[in-house]
């Protein structure tokens, strides 16, 4: 294990953890319910760590991507249903991320939104075309570390630390009306979905194969999952906690993605704002790349095409055409003029519906001795895996009713 590679991998995971949905829901959750939803972020982070570690281990040991093995395990019919559902979910998420990047660029430069959307998409396509996988992943992940300004801002905003620490204990705030209780439930489900997005697992495991992981990389996989995602989650929790301190008492509802940047502007002025916007820009742009590539990986792996950005674009031709077309499709969705916030809500809703279909085959595969040999799930991973599978299944069942009952969390 190369310590430099490991550190870079962990830092990349930290910088790449936050995406547009986490930005939006963390800020809204903090302003509406104070620190009461911090535990949901922490709880979901353990879930994504469990499944990411599992998917990385499957990639390192079976040396086959999760979607190939998923089709083998689920069969053609159920596999196709999972593929189509995940394509729709990832495409909407990718559109939301592209819209989010364009909005942030609009805040940074003052340029008009729609031309920014086109410019962002062209720049993202060019970056994947030009850079090999490791550089694509690292460039966005490491530049996303500007988001650390939110953690520093939290210290400067002087929260009540004991109240924040209390937020890590599972709770439902006292004295909520039925309507508020439903809204709390909707936010909890949305946060679970935003943290455990299926694309993260597809991208992570495919990335492991792109980098040629083998069983000797299992410790690297474990450390990257636990430390990278754990520390990344602290950034998301910082956004929530800042919002609870800054927006909550002022009765401000951070309705637009850019609102979160003000959390750093209040203590640090102009430079805080610029650093926050830059961090958000690279983190969300990285998420756009990940969602698009995750979609292309899924399709190529399902049909057994050549795939991967460790190859030159012309060496995996159908894969290359697929990711370009997926970017164009996501651009098309944004150009219809649909609001970015609406896209974020649809992305979160669709993803939670897909989550059980994504995680069940992964659980079965990583517990299959024929594929995994002695690297099969241990007792703790197995228990946590099945527990989180039950959680996401329940969340998937209540997501739509909660969305309609609360008008998308607006009460």
């Amino acid at each position: 294990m190369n310590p430099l590679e490991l550190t870079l991998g962990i830092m990349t995971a930290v910088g790449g953890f936050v995406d547009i949905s986490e930005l939006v829901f963390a800020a809204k959750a903090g302003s509406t319910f104070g620190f009461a939803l911090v535990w949901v972020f922490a709880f979901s982070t353990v879930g994504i760590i469990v499944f990411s570690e599992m998917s990385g281990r499957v990639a390192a040991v079976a040396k086959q991507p999760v979607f190939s093995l998923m089709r083998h395990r689920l069969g053609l019919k159920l596999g196709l249903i999972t593929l189509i559902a995940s394509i729709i979910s990832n495409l909407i998420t990718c559109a939301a991320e592209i819209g989010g990047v364009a909005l942030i660029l609009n805040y940074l430069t003052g340029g008009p939104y729609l031309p920014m959307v086109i410019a962002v998409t062209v720049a993202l396509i060019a970056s994947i075309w030009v850079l090999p996988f490791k550089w694509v992943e690292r460039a966005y992940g490491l530049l996303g570390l500007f988001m650390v300004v939110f953690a520093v801002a939290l210290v400067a905003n002087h929260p009540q630390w004991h109240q924040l620490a209390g937020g890590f204990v599972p709770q439902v705030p006292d004295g909520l009306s039925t309507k508020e209780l439903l809204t709390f439930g909707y936010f909890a489900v949305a946060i679970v979905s935003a943290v455990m997005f299926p694309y993260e697992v597809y991208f992570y495991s495919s990335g492991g194969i792109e980098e040629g992981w083998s069983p000797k990389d299992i410790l690297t996989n474990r450390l990257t999952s636990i430390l990278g995602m754990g520390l990344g989650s602290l950034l998301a929790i910082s956004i929530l906690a800042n919002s609870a301190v800054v927006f909550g008492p002022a009765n401000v509802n951070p309705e637009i993605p850019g609102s979160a940047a003000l959390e750093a502007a209040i203590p640090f002025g102009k430079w805080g704002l610029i650093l926050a916007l830059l961090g958000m820009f690279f983190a969300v742009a990285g998420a756009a790349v990940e969602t698009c590539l995750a979609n292309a990986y899924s399709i190529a792996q399902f049909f057994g095409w050549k795939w991967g950005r460790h190859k030159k674009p012309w060496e995996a031709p159908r894969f290359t055409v697929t990711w370009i077309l997926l970017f164009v499709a996501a651009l098309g969705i944004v150009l219809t003029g649909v609001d970015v916030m609406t896209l974020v809500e649809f992305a979160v809703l669709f993803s939670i519906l897909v989550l059980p279909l994504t995680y069940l085959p992964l659980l079965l595969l990583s517990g299959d001795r024929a594929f995994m040999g002695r690297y099969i799930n241990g007792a703790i991973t197995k228990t946590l895996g099945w527990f989180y599978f039950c959680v996401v299944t329940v969340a998937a069942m209540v997501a739509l009713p909660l969305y309609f009952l609360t008008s998308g969390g607006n009460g």
Partner: protein
Amino acid sequence: MKPSDPIKLVSQLLDLPIVDSEGAYCGVVDDIELAGRAQQPLEVKALMIGPGAYAGRLPRWAMKIVRITAGDRVVRVPLGKIRTIGAAVQLQVPGTVLGLQRSEDRVERWIPRKGAF
């Protein structure tokens, strides 16, 4: 596992990715050709690869969509061309020899060979 070992068809072979002798992905086991007579054991003769092989596995309406979007080509890979069966089916020969890379080759012509590190 070797091709001559007994296998559970559905759980061990169907829908596995296929990797050729050069390490390139070249499809998925979409169907299996069997041979045998009544009261005799069935034998796997070949793997069927390509959208046309979905015919017995998808409803008719879905198959119509597959035909329109992906065609109905099927490539037959004789069992003798298989080296091992594990998390993927490993071929003994390059996929192009068996006609497995035609779609990739067709799309490759449209992609400019510049600008990528």
